[in-house]
């Protein structure tokens, strides 16, 4: 009451009076005093002497009531330090701070969202424009549809190029069917197929399987199309791949293969083809008729079963080597005919290439050359006999000339010498001398002829000396230089070998002198334990090696045949303008040779 009636601030001494309008002051806390007194009583009760307990100065603090301070306009800053202000009232900020912060954050967020929205719209519009452009400019024909009725939202340029239809012609799917498939039956079958694929895709949770169909274009032509489908939400994209050219090429290829088969099956030769894997991919009817086996048995590596075991490795090796180099090849092997007889076949294989130049495999043709081979063999025998007969004849004539004619000429000369000694007058003596000289000349010529036909020197002197002698004589006769070298030629050689080498030398050197156009030649004759080698070389005009056995041939052919009689071989190296070297090699068969030497 006092406080309320007072017109000045009322201060008090005890804290319990506060809250009743008093301002406050340096207050003594009654409860604080009680606590201190209680504490002393406890200390005394526990035996502590009162005189030991120190005197308590007091428990007062500066305490004020906020409401009274406000009422009297007293400032808190004017209060003594350490003052406690009770019953202080809260500000709006202090009371509602979190509500205020939350509201501001919410407001700012909304603002950002509102501001970002148009930007997002622009982005989306741009993205849509890009997608649209991609579809429009795609090199693949496309349609984009939307909604359950499949309204065509976009038809790209390629689509219009391909089919001629525009978005005006095809506003939706319903317009597509009659235009693309005017034939009702075909249309229904396509619709059915389409539905089946959609259902299967739904069940299997996969994309719709691509579909092929023949589509009518606006100009009435038809194109072979492969359809691809894709869904994005309520949008669908249909892609149209034009397979018309590929399909046409396939058809053409099939037709071409059919024609090939037709031709090859009526061909009189056996024909095969192989793929890039080297395996047989086809043989013609002629082949099958020959082997008497079904096609399946010949395909892959099956055909090799018919090749003679002795020829099989060589045959495959030739094939593999040529195949790896993509080169043509020729091989001869024995192939089993259906009657079980092995027949010699000549097989020509050539690589095949696609129009783009890529390797496509091989094609080959075989002919039965058994008869030809027999003919060749008999021809070789005839050739050998011919050479032998020729040699025998030459030997006979040579010997006749040498042993008979020349002997008689010698006797005649001896008779003339006697006459000359007994000649009665000079005139007769001169005539006799003259006649004798002519006889001597004839004898010389006959001996030369005899030596050419059959070189008795070969018998008397052995190969090396006879060869050297021949070179010397030819050099003198034709006025050319012949450098002769020899080494290691055995004194005793079989007559066949020495005669063969000698004949090759005669033929080769005479050819060289006649055709090379140069005046200098080298002859090299070498013997080893294994063989005799003869080399005749010139630095003259030369010729093309390919023509060696054709154009320049007869001499070389007869040399080669002669050498074959003693298992020898002939090689010719020549280039136009770079001279010619012929090399003959004859093996020395140790057994035969020892027998001859022994």
């Amino acid at each position, binding site marked *: 009451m006092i406080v309320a009636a007072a017109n000045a601030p009322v201060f008090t001494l005890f804290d319990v009076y506060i809250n009743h309008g008093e301002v406050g002051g340096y207050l003594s806390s009654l409860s604080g005093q009680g606590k201190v007194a209680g504490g002393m009583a406890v200390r005394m009760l526990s035996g502590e002497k009162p005189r030991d307990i120190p005197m308590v100065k007091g428990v007062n603090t500066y305490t004020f009531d906020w409401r009274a301070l406000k009422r009297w306009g007293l400032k808190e800053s004017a209060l003594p330090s350490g003052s406690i202000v009770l019953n202080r009232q809260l500000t709006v900020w202090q009371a509602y701070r979190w509500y205020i912060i939350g509201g501001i954050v919410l407001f700012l967020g909304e603002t950002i969202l509102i501001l970002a929205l148009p930007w997002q719209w622009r982005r989306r519009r741009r993205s849509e424009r890009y997608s649209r452009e991609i579809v429009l400019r795609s090199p693949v024909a496309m349609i984009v549809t939307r909604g359950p009725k499949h309204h065509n939202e976009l038809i790209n340029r390629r689509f219009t190029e391909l089919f001629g239809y525009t978005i005006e012609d095809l506003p939706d799917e319903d317009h597509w069917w009659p235009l693309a498939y005017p034939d009702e039956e075909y249309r229904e079958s396509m619709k059915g197929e389409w539905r089946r694929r959609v259902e299967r895709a739904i069940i299997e949770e996969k994309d719709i399987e691509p579909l092929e169909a023949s589509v009518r274009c606006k100009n009435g032509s038809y194109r072979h199309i492969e359809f691809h489908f894709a869904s994005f939400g309520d949008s669908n994209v249909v892609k149209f791949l034009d397979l018309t050219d590929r399909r046409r090429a396939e058809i053409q290829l099939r037709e071409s293969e059919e024609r090939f088969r037709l031709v090859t099956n009526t061909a009189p030769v056996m024909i095969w083809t192989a793929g890039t894997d080297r395996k047989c991919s086809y043989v013609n009817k002629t082949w099958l008729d020959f082997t008497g086996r079904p096609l399946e048995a010949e395909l892959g590596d099956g055909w090799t079963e018919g090749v003679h075991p002795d020829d099989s490795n060589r045959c495959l090796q030739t094939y593999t080597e040529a195949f790896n180099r993509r080169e043509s090849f020729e091989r001869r092997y024995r192939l089993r005919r259906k009657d079980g007889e092995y027949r010699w076949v000549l097989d020509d294989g050539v690589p095949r290439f696609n129009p783009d130049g890529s390797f496509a495999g091989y094609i080959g043709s075989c002919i039965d050359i058994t008869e030809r081979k027999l003919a060749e063999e008999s021809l070789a025998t005839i050739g050998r006999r011919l050479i032998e007969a020729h040699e025998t004849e030459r030997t006979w004539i040579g010997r006749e000339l040498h*042993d008979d004619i020349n002997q008689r000429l010698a*006797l005649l000369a*001896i008779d003339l010498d006697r006459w000359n000694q007994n000649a009665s007058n000079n005139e007769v003596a001169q005539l006799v001398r003259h006649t004798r000289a002519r006889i001597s000349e004839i*004898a010389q010529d006959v001996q030369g002829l005899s030596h050419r036909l059959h070189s008795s020197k070969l018998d*008397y002197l052995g190969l090396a*000396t006879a060869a050297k002698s021949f070179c010397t004589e030819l050099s003198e006769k034709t006025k050319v230089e012949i450098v002769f070298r*020899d080494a290691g030629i*055995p004194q005793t050689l079989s007559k066949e070998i020495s005669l063969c080498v000698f004949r090759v030398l005669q033929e080769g050197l005479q050819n060289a002198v006649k055709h090379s156009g140069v005046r200098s030649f080298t002859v090299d004759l070498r013997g080893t334990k294994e063989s005799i080698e003869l080399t005749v070389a010139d630095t003259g005009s030369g010729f093309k090696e390919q023509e060696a056995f054709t154009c320049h041939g007869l001499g070389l052919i007869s040399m080669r045949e002669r050498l074959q009689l003693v298992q020898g071989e002939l090689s010719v190296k020549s280039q136009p303008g770079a001279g010619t070297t012929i090399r003959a090699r004859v093996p020395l068969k140790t057994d035969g040779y020892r027998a001859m*030497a022994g």
Partner: protein
Amino acid sequence: MRALHEFIHALAQRAEGDPLETSSIRVLVVEDSEEFRKFICSTLGERPEFQVVGEVTDGLRALQRADELRPDLILLDIGLPSLNGIEIARQIRKLSPESKILFVSQESSADVVREALHTGAHGYVVKIDAGSELMKGVNAVIRGDQFVSKRFSGEDFLVSSHAGVSEDRQTDGSR
């Protein structure tokens, strides 16, 4: 038969020990042409110091007779059946080294002559020149000289060794 007859005849002559024969020159004629053999024998017959002790027509037979008779002189053809004269000469050098050999052959090639003389033979007469050269050759060879037909006068057949190997040749003798 004829060869056998000659053989017996020669043996008989040796056995008789004719004092005249001791000084005669015993000759073996190896020649397959009958006419030529006759010519040789008649030419030699003109001179009493020569005695033809054997006539043969075949190469192998010539070796056999040379071995048996050991003649002073052998007149040897080259072109003969079974073995040629050059080969015969080589063998005779071993079988009867004291026999002198004069080739009488129609071969007129210098290479053949060279090879023939390489065997160790002493002379070479070409048949066609035999009318004038046979006796010259025989005389020269008997004297121990070398004789070669005049037609080869330009050639050099100097033979110092009888190795039978020409200088520029490496003959493999083992074969």
